[in-house]
């Protein structure tokens, strides 16, 4: 087992949000699995850690739901990789998910506001 890093520096992706995060990451263009892990980590400021054990099942799930499409292609350094991209259906789903997410995070933020500000 790798030594555990402090909980504040790395967070595991919340259950149920992984699909949303993957869709969001694919908004910038097609990516392969390894690329997605890097991308998500980088975009979350090194906070979010995607378990590969969850990522591949999530990718398969999204393909099955036709939210993303997969095809074999070549990576930047000439490796045969499986590239994932958003489908129109995925794009539409992302929009609804995002508005729901914003609603949710506003609600959480409201709850977290220090009591002093309420007065």
């Amino acid at each position, binding site marked *: 087992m790798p030594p555990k890093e402090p909980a504040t520096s790395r967070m595991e992706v919340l259950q149920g949000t992984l699909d949303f995060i993957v869709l969001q990451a694919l908004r910038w263009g097609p990516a*392969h699995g*390894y690329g997605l892990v890097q991308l998500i980590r980088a975009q979350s400021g090194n906070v979010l850690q995607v378990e590969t*054990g969850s990522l*591949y099942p999530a*990718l*398969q*799930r999204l393909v099955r739901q036709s939210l993303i499409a997969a095809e074999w292609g070549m*990576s930047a350094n000439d490796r045969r990789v*499986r590239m994932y991209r958003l489908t129109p259906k995925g794009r539409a789903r992302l929009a609804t998910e995002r508005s729901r997410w914003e609603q949710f995070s506003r609600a959480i933020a409201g709850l977290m506001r220090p009591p002093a500000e309420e007065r």
Partner: protein
Amino acid sequence: MSIFEWLRWRPGRGGDALSDQLSDEIRAHLEMAEADRIARGESADDAAHNARREFGNVALAYELARDQWAGPGQWVERLAQDLRFALRVLRRAPGFTAASILTIAVGVGACTALFSVVDATLLRPLPYPHPERLVRIEDDLRGLGSRDVGMSTPEWRDLERSGLFEFVSPAWYDDNNLTGLARPQRVSMLIVAPNYFSLLGVRPQLGATFAPNDKTPGFNGQVVISDGLWKRGFGADPHVLGRVVQLDSDSYRIIGVMPPGFQAPGPTQQERGTEVWPAFGFAGAPMSEASVQSRASVYPETFARLEAGHTIAEAQRRIDALVESLRRQYPAAYPPAVDWHVRLVPLQESLTGDVRQPLLFLLGAVALVLLIGCANVANLTLARSTTRGREMAVRQALGGAPARLIRQLLTETIVLAVLGGALGVALLLATRSSLVRLVPAGVPRLNDIAIDWNVAGFAFAASVAAGVCFGIAPALRIRRLDVTRVLREEGSRATPSADQKRMRRLLVAGEFAVSLMLLSACGLLMRSVWDLLHAPLGYDPTAVTVVRTRLPYPNDPREDHYGSVADESPFVREVLRRCLALPGVVSAALGSGAAVPLDHPAQDQNIFRVVFDRGTGRSDQPLIVTGSLVTPEYFSLLSMSLVRGRLFDDHDTDHSPSVAVVNEAMAHAYWPSEDPIGKRIKLSPRDTSWMTIVGVVANARTESLTGADVPLVFGSLYQRQGKHLAIFLRGRFETATIERQVRAEVQSIDSALPVFGGKALSETVVASIAVRRLSLELIGLFALTALFLAGIGIYGVVSYMVNERTGEIGLRLALGAERADVMRLLMGQGLAMAFTGGIAGVVGALIVSRVLAGTLLGVPQVDPLSLAASAAALTAVAFMGCYLPARRVIRVEPAMALRS
């Protein structure tokens, strides 16, 4: 093996394109991660290692991802994969597999055998349309403590008018002599109303049944015959319809032949064997007008079919109301003290009432045997799972999800159990015919016993349940498997964990508990059968043979050659004279059917209501007694002892006042503080004149082996008429020979009389408890099997213990311990298991004996003797089971043991 090879090796993958893609993808991922790490300056080795570590469990990720796209067909594929794997594993462990399969085969086979009987008799609906609407109507006189006393013609008509029933048919079983064919046949006959067959909803295979609305008074001159009689008596003649046959010299025309396999749904074995059905209006000759009008003159049975839309419970409520109003309307016929009730009994229940409890009890017992078998196989599986712990740990480390492994292990045990079950059913099918012969002939619907889909389904369900039963504990241990610990013990022998040892001990203790329950039940039954067979009977059946005959009941009284006592007495005297002259006969007597101890034919009316001469008896006692008729020699022939007064003698004839002899139970019940001698009674409805009690005989177990204190009244055969006659003979002769000789003598007096049923009285005594004896034999067999299995169980555990601790034992011996002490230590641990089980078993045994005492008369609630005997047997087995493996300690060489 590299991870990629391992991926390719995964069983069940085939040339699956999606699987290939997934493993390629995961490989690419790892390669890129590795490349990045090298670019960041890690060494090639570190990079590969860290990339793998970062990825986590490759196989698990693969498996989970695969789950996502594999559709519903996947579980079939998995099941097939598990099955293949299970079969492979089992083939690799032939000893374990054979032992388990055999154990389960015996358990499931025995369970299935009993279930097939339960299914045929208790579960399967009767083979008639809408069997739920068929009832047997039973009249109880609760105030007199008697059940099912029969019904009168006026009551029958009341029921028919009630609007609750589509059909109501009285029935009267009798046997008869069928003549008019090549050879006279003794036949079983059921006199029924013309609607009987319409009531059941059965059709003949040939001809017709009676017109259901025929209201002809008396017999309508038609009979329906059984398939058996058709084949036996008429050679399956297709032109049998219209043939005229004689029953009791009255002529009947055959109008129909019932299909093979049709059985009259009656409560007795004789009635179920009915071969001839004459139709009778239950009014008109030979019934007198008085008996047609009388509410006291009853026939034995009534069957009915409810109108569509009525449930039995609802019909019962309305019958209760009807009975209430009839009691008000006819207060003389239904005095409140008698407390007359009419009960609707589902027909199926009335057929199986006697055997229901013994059957269910046996099924319970055999299920316990299966349970013990399961415990044994569970023990084997647990022992194996210790050795397989490494395999499981490796598979888990390689990504086998625990749920998947549990399913795999369960599949293995269920495959094992189903194989065992299949073998059990195969054995059952092979031995089927000889097994069916073991079932006592009194069990209803014997012909219906079959290994059909129902039974096969039961066997399958029992096997799967057994598989889950013995597989679940070892399988669930996967969850608690400490993967790293097991893997770290490289090279060292796999050792069972503490909870595993505990579980094995628990299983053995459980086996002993259940065995003790079975053994004590067996002990109780053995005790009761022994007691019943050795209790003083009050009469001496040895060297006594009973042969029966029957005088005709012609429908026209003018044709009756034996119509009065004066007509019958010369015949009785002549039979006695001729029988006494037969070789080997020392004494002879005649009596009515009810005079035969423990074997009263159903067709002979023998239950009567006692009527007292004014103020001569207590009226708060049950007034129903068994009444029989005998010649004076009867009491001395059976060695029944006179307590007071006198027995019958030759001066008691139809010219002298009627006399009666009662037993002590009768005397005590009605005249506890008075002398019964000289008191006058009548047995209703038989007697028209008073009988004066002249003697009291000692109580005897003539009605059942379980009790002697049943009130009895004996009348003289020279003063009252009996049609079903029993000839009692004491002496040295063969039963079959004497029956033939008696037949010749009787038929030389009257050639039309049948002579049959020759049977040694001692056999009758033994046969009267046939069901109980069979229960005893089966329970005994089950208990022995259980004991054997428990012995094997404890042997296995102790021998495992010895193996496992050889090193420790060697150390102890090297340090100077005595071998005997070490052996005692090991045996003590083994016996402790048995003892724990035994304690629990005593509690179970007490419950079992309570249940048994509730269902079987003559079984004590607590029987210390049988409990002690069971415990002793169990201790002996436990001792052997511990001693044999522990003895190996003697051979342990300390030096060898320590070095190994």
